[in-house]
């Protein structure tokens, strides 16, 4: 399969294009996604290729976007709405939680919502206030939703295509900070990366480090650093699907290493790390040689950008977390 070196945002753009070429039910809607190609250029060139009916600039109304997406999906389309920044999904929260997540249940399978809500998320991007939330918990705490976050270009395209194929509604969280951070070979053709499967992205035997999305690069850096500075062998897992997440891969690794660190950008308090730590505690307690450590943003509102680097975990803080479990 031939490929090209793409950034994450280019990979997502390529994924959208592939999906739309393959399945004419797929349509995009959202604010500024058409003529403007999206504020991050995720939908660049798609209006030109697929026309106004399939790439739709909508009014500025998130509940309207999400609510009509449910209707579109229920009547045979495969909508891929874009929410401009994560905090702007909140005005449409009711549609997500009470309807999109529940329509299958509420109709005993008669109606479903095969749609993908694309949501740029996370900070450390020098963005304005309220443009850097990382509140995946809201969605991961909602049964009926699949929550996905790619951390690299290859997964960006492959997970997106799986999400669009899925019969379940998917909240697709794109780490803004990694949109243009680096390039990676991405196949030109259609391929999928399975939902619900974590990936061991670095093998190790002393400690398991679990992360995803916007924190993944810091996690890998921290793993390197821990190895170089302390000689600790760190296994790193990219969770990729945040709900329902891959217990099997996580537990197998932690049982092997006996130690776990979880790093994410969400607040610590009830961040997904809490669930992971609780489950690891339930399933692996006899194998654990130290308490599970969580490295997360502080439990304060995401700050203006000059404080961001202190607020969210960086490689240094993740190394501290590793240190803690290794020296317990």
């Amino acid at each position, binding site marked *: 399969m031939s490929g090209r070196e793409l950034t994450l945002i280019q990979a997502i753009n390529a994924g959208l294009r592939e999906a739309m070429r393959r399945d004419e039910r797929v*349509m995009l809607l959202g604010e500024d996604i058409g003529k403007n190609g999206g504020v991050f250029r995720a939908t660049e060139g798609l209006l030109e290729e697929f026309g106004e*009916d399939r790439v739709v600039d*909508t*009014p500025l*109304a998130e*509940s*309207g976007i*999400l*609510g*009509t*997406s*449910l*209707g*579109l*999906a*229920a*009547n*045979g*389309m495969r*909508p891929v709405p874009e929410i401009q920044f994560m905090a702007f999904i909140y*005005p449409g929260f*009711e*549609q997500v939680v*009470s*309807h999109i997540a529940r*329509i*299958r*249940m*509420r*109709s*005993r*399978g*008669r*109606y*479903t919502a095969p749609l993908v809500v694309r949501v740029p998320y996370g900070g450390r991007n020098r963005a304005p206030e309220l443009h850097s939330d990382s509140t995946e918990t809201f969605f991961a705490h909602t*049964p*009926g939703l*699949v929550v996905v976050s790619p951390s690299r270009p290859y997964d960006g395209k492959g997970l997106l295509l799986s999400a669009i194929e*899925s*019969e*379940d509604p998917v909240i697709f969280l794109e780490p803004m900070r990694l949109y243009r951070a680096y390039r990676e070979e991405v196949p030109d053709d259609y391929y999928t990366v399975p939902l*619900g499967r974590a990936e061991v992205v670095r093998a190790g035997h002393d400690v398991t480090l679990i992360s995803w999305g916007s924190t993944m690069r810091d996690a890998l850096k921290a793993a390197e650093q821990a190895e170089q500075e302390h000689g600790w062998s760190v296994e790193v897992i990219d969770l990729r699907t945040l709900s*329902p997440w891959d*217990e*099997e891969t996580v537990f197998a690794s932690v049982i092997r290493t006996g130690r776990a660190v979880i790093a994410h950008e969400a607040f610590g308090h009830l961040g997904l790390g809490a669930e992971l730590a609780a489950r690891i505690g339930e399933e692996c307690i006899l194998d654990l040689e130290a308490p599970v450590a969580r490295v997360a943003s502080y439990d304060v509102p995401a700050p203006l950008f000059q404080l961001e680097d202190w607020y969210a975990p960086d490689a240094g803080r993740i190394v501290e977390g590793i240190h803690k479990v290794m020296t317990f």
Partner: protein
Amino acid sequence: MDVSYVIHPAPAADEPKPSGMDDALLVHMYEQMVWVRQFDRRLVALQRSGRIGTYPPVEGHEACQVASALALRQQDWVFPTYRDTGAMLVRGVPMERLLLYWNGRAEGLYIPEGVKVFPIAVPIATQLPHAAGVAWAARLRGLDEVALAFFGDGASSEGDFHEALNFAGVFRLPIIFFCENNQYAISVPYARQTASETIAQKAQAYGLVGKRVDGSDAIAVYQAVREALAEARQGGGATLIEALTYRYGPHTTSDDPSKYRPKEEAEAWRERDPLLRHRRRLEGWGLWDEERQQALERRVNEGIVAAIRAMEAAPPPNPDDLFDHVYAELPPRLVRQRDELRARLAQREGAER
């Protein structure tokens, strides 16, 4: 901006027959209203005797629901609220399902294939964007389908009302927004809901056509919906219909309207009873008499009794229903939980034997 007012203050006995509606339809309309009223009253009675849960009665709204449902075609969509038992019935949702639903049974959630009715909207106004989306999909797919969404006067205050009507205007969607303005949202009167003189005039904010219609007049409702349907099919976009009506009973079986509504008001509205009014017309046109009435009531009653029996004969709730429709495929965590519940119930059952 066309806001037409079609309110007849009182039933007209010597009305000419409307054009474009044949006798069979005029009679059918009445029969359906009777069916709805009987069924509705029975649901209230069942709740009172503890055989189903809380229920929001229709009584007073029959013309709104029956006539608008009849004005639609098989392929058109209906988006009901909790109060739209009447419309659901007319559209073909089996009584048994409705009974199961209000009896808290998951089986009641199922709407048979081919019946284009959406699940009851519980959170107020949230169905309006769904309806807009369904109408939009129809347009995109080149299907000749129109969506009709019911909502109340209270619902007009929610953001979702605004966003849905705005989408309908911008994308010229084939949709009918049908407001059953019964002048109260639970206890809150219209004047506390909005300072707008009418709901219909809100159409102007979205470039839509707004119409007001007497919601006690089945024929007027039918005609208003037919017009809106024709408009939608011809690409004219959406219509907002405001039907003035009144619920004769409480908001739900847990509600006590005497706390917030003067008794005389309810009595005055009773005089505009949509069933009585339509019956008088039919009688005037020689299409109805007491004999037919009695036969109808018997037939309806039998149907209802059979449906109640079916509800009560339903097998006991199945624990798997908690899990079966959460995802297309049950994820491992939920498989574990389902199996745990199955095991627990089996054990408890064993212990009880």
